[in-house]
């Protein structure tokens, strides 16, 4: 830690900042992104201060807004975790979307199929069904990768498309709600519904716990150590006696399970049924979030919260000022760019800046 040594010569506050720069840089990135965003908003002839006020007011200023924001944040945390876990092993799970919708459907299925279950158990069964569905769906990609050498990017893209078609079939034929023009399932039983505590959805608390648990697994357990080792250097991992194939399958199972849980929480907590139009793009937001969080499980929480706030405030922005909701994507892209590009760190910390590291080292193999 030469950086640490050098930093000690600095003023204590500065040295603190230098050591915490992985925290400082994202914060400044968000601020700068909002500054650039305010220029874009001003160019639309709208006062940026008012616009940002609208976003935050709508997303955080009322119980209804807060509830919606937390509801939006919940699946994003889980989808972000899904992508992050796979990244730790050097796998790029671009198929979180497919796993998420599989989870959403099968949680719903458990929700309307099992009768006479006590509420708590029914919710648990529903969540479990989602986790299993998402996990197994991703495990296909894991097995193909480990035993047949099929690249996970290609297999998860294929599995996304297959999942969409498969679920479309299921909601159009065997599980279609009778007498409905719209292809969708019947609603789940009340016993399977995830409740809300005031403006806090229970699913959100669950997502927080899961994020903490995953963080613990990744950073403190043998399994996590093996994950990281495989991700950092396959040859070293093999030399150390780690069963790489096993780790690849296990990590995809875990990753898909997390994405499936994200879908399950949506189905049991918000939509109460399955419709193909639901859950659009959540898995892809998961990629953004995992990258914003630099594959750090705990950091997915603030990253998902940021996305949740922006997405939940955007409709009000259009309502009040006629600004298209896509401004949110511009803000996120600028933030991601600033977080990812080492420029900002170099500008602020000069020679004390940390070298950027690759988090997706396993692309090539």
């Amino acid at each position, binding site marked *: 830690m030469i950086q640490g040594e050098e930093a000690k010569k600095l003023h204590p506050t500065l040295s603190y900042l230098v050591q915490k720069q992985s925290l400082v840089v994202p914060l400044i990135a968000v601020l700068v992104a909002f500054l650039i965003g305010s220029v*874009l908003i001003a160019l639309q002839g709208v006062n940026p201060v008012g616009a940002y006020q609208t976003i935050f007011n709508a997303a955080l200023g009322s119980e209804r807004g807060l509830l919606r924001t937390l509801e939006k944040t919940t699946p994003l945390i889980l989808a972000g975790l899904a992508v992050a876990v796979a990244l730790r092993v050097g796998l*790029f799970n*671009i198929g979180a979307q497919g796993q998420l919708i599989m989870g959403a459907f099968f949680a719903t299925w458990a929700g309307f199929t099992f009768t006479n279950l006590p509420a708590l158990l029914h919710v648990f069964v529903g969540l479990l069904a989602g986790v299993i569905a998402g996990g197994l769906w991703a495990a296909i990609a894991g097995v*193909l990768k480990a035993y*047949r*050498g*099929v*690249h996970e*990017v*290609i*297999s998860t*893209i*294929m*599995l996304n*498309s*297959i999942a969409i*078609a*498969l679920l*479309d*079939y299921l909601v*159009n*034929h065997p599980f279609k709600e009778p007498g409905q023009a719209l292809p969708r399932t019947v609603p789940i039983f009340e016993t399977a519904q995830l409740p809300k505590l005031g403006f806090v959805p229970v699913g959100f608390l669950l997502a927080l716990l899961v994020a903490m648990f995953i963080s613990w697994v990744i950073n403190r357990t043998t399994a996590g150590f093996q994950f990281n080792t495989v991700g950092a250097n396959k040859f070293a991992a093999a030399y150390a006696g780690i069963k790489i194939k096993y780790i690849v399958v296990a990590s995809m199972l875990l990753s898909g399970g997390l994405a499936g849980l994200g879908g399950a929480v949506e189905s049991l907590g918000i939509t109460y049924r399955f419709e193909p139009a639901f859950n659009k793009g959540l898995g892809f937001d998961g*990629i*953004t979030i995992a*990258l914003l969080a630099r594959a750090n499980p705990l950091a997915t929480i603030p990253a998902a919260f940021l996305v949740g706030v922006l997405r939940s405030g955007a409709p009000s922005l259009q309502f009040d000022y006629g600004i*298209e909701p*896509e*401004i*949110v*994507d*511009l803000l*996120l*892209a*600028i933030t*991601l*760019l600033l977080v*990812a*590009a*080492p*420029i900002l760190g170099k500008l602020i910390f000069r020679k004390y800046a940390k*070298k*950027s590291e*690759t*988090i*997706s*080292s*396993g*692309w*090539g*193999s």
Partner: protein
Amino acid sequence: MSKFLTRHQKPVLWTLLVVFIAYGFYFWDSVRTTSILNFTLSYALPLILAAMVGIIGERSGVVNIGIEGQMLFSAFVAFFAAAATGSLIMGAFLGMAAGLLAGAFLGIAAVRWEMDQIIAGVVINIVAAGITSFYYTPGKSLPAIVPRIKIPVLSEIPLLGPVFFNKSVFVYLTLIIVVVLQIMLFTSKWGLRTRAVGEYPSAADTAGINVFRTRIFNVAIAGILAGTAGAYLSLDAAGWFERGFTAGRGFLALAIMIFGAWNPLGAMAAALFFGFASGMASQLQADEVINIPQQFINMLPYVMTLVVLSFSAGKVRPPAAVGQPYKKEG
């Protein structure tokens, strides 16, 4: 020629087999065969170009997951530039320039800034989606249509003529690009350097190749191809720009690149396979010949890809240094 044949026995035989079968079907039902192959080619065209973008990038050691965004951005620029200037050529030109810009961004971010390549690609995708829907303006239309150019003599060949030789300039351009790229990549000095940089950057460096410059240059040039694909989509294939209308083609192209084992001709074959499967899916739906829910027909190409890959993958491997920023020692 004979050397080429002995070295590439398998692909040549496969190609002959496919052509043979195609003619078999042609003599059975010429209208359906021709029209499905027309569909196949136009469906595959943007995928082929996008796969070339991926191949050039990965062959030089840079993952390009931003092809989707590069195409979308270029399609946007091409369409609105053509509508504003009243010239399709201007639109296509500016679309390609937009692709170059997006490609150069990836190159500089990945190489100069040593940014994580996947993040850089994702940034391109999100920025492109954001800009193109945020700044989309309704009510614009193209000044003209992209003309078909009939190539004399060749266009008279049964089946191959109408499918390959009576098409817009984009088709000819794409076919030329694929062949030229295939030859360049494996025989030219540029190809040798590119592959060296993608396989053993440190050795390439020692041999006096500028790794940074080669990578940036290649990724930027590949951006022009993404721009061509985008221009094709908005100026020719759709004649229109719709928000988000690249619809995952950039990601599919990555799959096709791997399917084609990082070879231009192989990727073209894979893209044509996807186009064919998609054409067959709608044809089976139209003809109502078999009573299978259409969802299963639609998922067929994806399932087949997985099956085919699980038997053939493992034999091919990506360029060794893909995804890793090169750092000079010392």
